[in-house]
């Protein structure tokens, strides 16, 4: 499809603005003005609508395709919560409006914090972090503030080698050095190596639980105890919370800090990359360090408290991604206690169903009951020349968004499949059938898989060329 810039016709215009209803004043001095109007497309409203409507149709999405993108929890995004977020009295509030004019919005924030505390077993929550990785950074800043406050000298952050890339990256951005613990043969962090590395200069141990292999570490409490004994805090990467709601609360088993991804567990849409929201929860001893402002309820009135001397300060311009929070709030109200428990049960059920069916066809590097996702290796197929990437592209042709591939990097030719609880048995069966077909094709007709996808508007794209020639904008 042509770029919208290529469709531009000099002199054409779209949306009309009101006429100036006050007298014109003197123009700005030339020195302050731009010399040439910016090149933006000159198109009609119909041009805009057709262009972006057609573009939209080129995407696979949850609403059109099964989307088992591991670690991303691509579940159904309720339309109801979208409807709620369109209510103007929520969407059109200036963040600096006087508190009396935003009591409803403050209540949403307050109540969501309370729900998340109960779901995770934490004592305090801040909804300010703007995404998961931002939550991680906020969490590490909290941990830093905590240690500084008590005069601890800290230098390291520990992560397992199966961690999300954001964990080490957040540690780096926060100024820590990194220690990486390998994965043992049971798919969990190597406990022995962990003990060896742990030392009094470790600020935090960051864990995903269940981890990115979809495995729940039964020794989690021991890990926590060891961390605490060494003076480190235990950080819970909430990317995989969808597996354990009502089954385990990080706050009960020794985690000190958690972040959640509202766009994963709480079904707010991923938006083609964002926005999300990454609220951060902490145990009692860390509450005083949470970002400001805090939302306070007193005599039925809500207010913003800024006077928190130990707070790490401002992590967001205001109160976080409010409209995302609102959707998550509505979602929690809709599902309630039993609903959320059922979410995790069915997410785990679906993943194990796929695991059970496919383990005869694909290598399962850690063959045990999984939680909400399972990670296969296509190394058997790779021997025939069929890589995870080829499998992904064939799936596209069959109308499925591929799983996450090549992650976690500790699994060769990884295929990380997270079906989520909102998918039905038929959909899983159809997916399984194609995956089995692929395994057979890899044996018998590997060439068929190499030339995929064929049904898409473009065929396999040259990513090397993209990175070498670097065309990052249209130049006309």
């Amino acid at each position, binding site marked *: 499809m042509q770029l919208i810039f290529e469709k531009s016709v000099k002199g054409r215009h779209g949306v009309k603005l009101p006429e100036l209803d006050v007298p014109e004043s003197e123009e700005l001095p030339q020195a302050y003005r731009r010399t040439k109007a910016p090149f933006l497309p000159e198109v009609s409203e119909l041009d805009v609508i057709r262009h972006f409507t057609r573009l*939209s149709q080129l995407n696979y999405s949850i609403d059109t395709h099964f989307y088992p993108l591991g670690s991303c929890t691509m579940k159904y995004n309720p339309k109801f919560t979208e409807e709620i977020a369109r209510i103007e009295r929520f969407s059109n509030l200036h963040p600096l409006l006087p508190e009396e004019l935003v009591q409803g919005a403050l209540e949403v924030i307050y109540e969501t914090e309370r729900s998340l505390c109960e779901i995770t077993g934490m004592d305090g929550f801040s909804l300010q972090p703007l995404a998961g990785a931002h939550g991680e950074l906020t969490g590490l800043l909290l941990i830093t503030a905590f240690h500084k406050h008590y005069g601890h000298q800290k230098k390291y952050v520990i992560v397992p080698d199966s961690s999300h890339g954001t964990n080490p990256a957040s540690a780096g951005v926060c100024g820590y050095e990194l220690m990486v613990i390998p994965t043992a043969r049971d798919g969990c962090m190597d406990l022995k190596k962990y003990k060896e590395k742990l030392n009094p200069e470790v600020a935090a141990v960051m864990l995903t639980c269940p981890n990115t292999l979809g495995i729940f570490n039964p020794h989690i409490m021991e890990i926590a105890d060891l961390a605490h004994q060494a003076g480190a805090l235990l950080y819970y990467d909430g990317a995989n919370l969808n597996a354990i709601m009502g089954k385990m609360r990080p706050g009960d088993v020794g985690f000190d800090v958690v972040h959640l991804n509202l766009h994963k567990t709480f079904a707010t849409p991923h938006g083609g990359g964002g926005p999300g929201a990454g609220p951060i929860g902490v145990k009692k001893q860390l509450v005083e360090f949470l970002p400001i402002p805090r939302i306070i309820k007193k005599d039925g009135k809500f207010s913003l408290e800024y006077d928190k001397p130990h707070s790490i300060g401002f992590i967001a311009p205001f109160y976080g991604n409010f409209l995302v929070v609102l959707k998550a709030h509505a979602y929690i109200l809709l599902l309630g206690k039993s609903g959320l428990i059922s979410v995790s049960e069915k997410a785990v059920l679906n993943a194990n169903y796929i695991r059970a069916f496919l383990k005869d066809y694909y290598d399962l590097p850690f063959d045990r009951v999984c939680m909400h996702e399972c990670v296969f290796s296509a190394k058997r197929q790779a021997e025939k020349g069929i890589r995870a990437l080829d499998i992904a592209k064939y799936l596209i042709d069959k109308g499925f968004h591929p799983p996450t591939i090549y992650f976690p990097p500790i699994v060769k030719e990884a295929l990380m499949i997270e079906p989520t609880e909102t998918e039905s048995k038929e959909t899983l069966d159809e997916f399984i059938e194609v995956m089995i077909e692929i395994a057979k094709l890899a044996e018998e007709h590997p060439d068929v898989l190499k030339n995929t996808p064929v049904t898409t508007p473009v065929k396999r794209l040259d990513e090397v060329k993209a990175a070498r020639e670097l065309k990052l904008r249209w130049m006309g």
Partner: protein
Amino acid sequence: MSYIPHTPEELKQMLKVIGVSSVEELFKDIKPALRPKSFNLPEGKSEFEVKEYLQRLSQKNNPYFINFMGAGFYDHYIPAVVDTLVSRSEFYTPYTPYQPECSQGILQAMYEYQTAICNLTEMDIANASLYDGGTALFEAVMMSLRITQRDKIIVDGGVNPIYQRMLLTHTANLPIKIVRLPPNIKRADREKIYYHLDKKTAAVVLQNPNFFGSIDDHSDIVEKAHQIETLVIENVYPISLGLLKTPGAMDVDIVTAEGQSLGIPLSFGGPYLGILACKKAFLRKMPGRIVGATVDKQGKKGFVLTLQTREQHIRGYKATSNICTNAALCALRAIIFLCALGKQGFVKLAHLNYHKTEFTKKLLKDIPGVEVVNSSTFNEFTVRLKKDATSVLKQLAEKGIIGGVPLNRFYKDMKNYFLIAVTERRKKAEILKFVEALKDAINL
């Protein structure tokens, strides 16, 4: 409500395939000692009940006062096409386009967004969005540290204090020095900047128009900084670029902006849109996703995420940033907004904002007891009263007018100051009503 499709019959069949007798068996790794001490949430409700509750809550909010609040976040009109298009679920329900062949829609839109941002700012390249303006500024600072391998940052007193405080929080644990100049209503204080500027300085951070509304041409500062290989980061207000000299024209190195004004609702603080653009030379130090054009096996044009080796999911600890989720849907809003207005419309929008503000400014200047503190401004300016601004604004609020942002929310000693923003949405009659109400209030 529940979004789970499983019937009891299917559940049974699935358990059989897995070879367990109950779902609970799948959770056997979570031993009894690890089970929740409490999970005390109310039971779920129907859409209909939750809607009633949330509508009742929404009634406790009131965004319908005549509003002159800005401070970096503005009440602009959003054309209907924007909401219509971003409401298409093929746009809002996918994730980051890791698989380009089935994501050309998002990818092309992001490429168009990058192009538009470059054209607006006259910079070489732009990424596909960050969370918001404040984190974009933080990322720009981090870039400058990496690029220059220096450890000092000078922040001009005109930079939005909301972003200054975010910057301080985010860098709290880093071994760097941030020199914050005192608040400065007028153009950037060259003297103070040059006083601090030295070869340890990674970047000077400026803003145009600045937080107080003042317009500046930073070319001279840029020139001075470049002489000692210090970078200049400029935070801008996108709508002003319909009229103002661009950061590109001033030879600025990294540009950041809050994109909320480009078709994104005020949303009580988010989600917003972090814009980041820079010179080509800094490409590999730039954080965030970037879309590049390429061709497919048959030579057909297409788009992919490129330079992913900068990113956390590949590079981990050594990534240029920890960002994963960005603000793609907000960037989509921005590119649709910019296309809907088009070149003419966008320039006109800037024009309307400028002239409505000038009109308001003139009227206020005539009121005894009101001092307009800055001279050249775009669509926001600062006034000083002879009395406490907060109480005057409270009086205006009683008449249904939010007169602006009192500056003591950010600077304790600026009790008598407030910021007034006038967008294209403020009609003449509203401006006149505001001016009259202000007259009354300061004479009380």
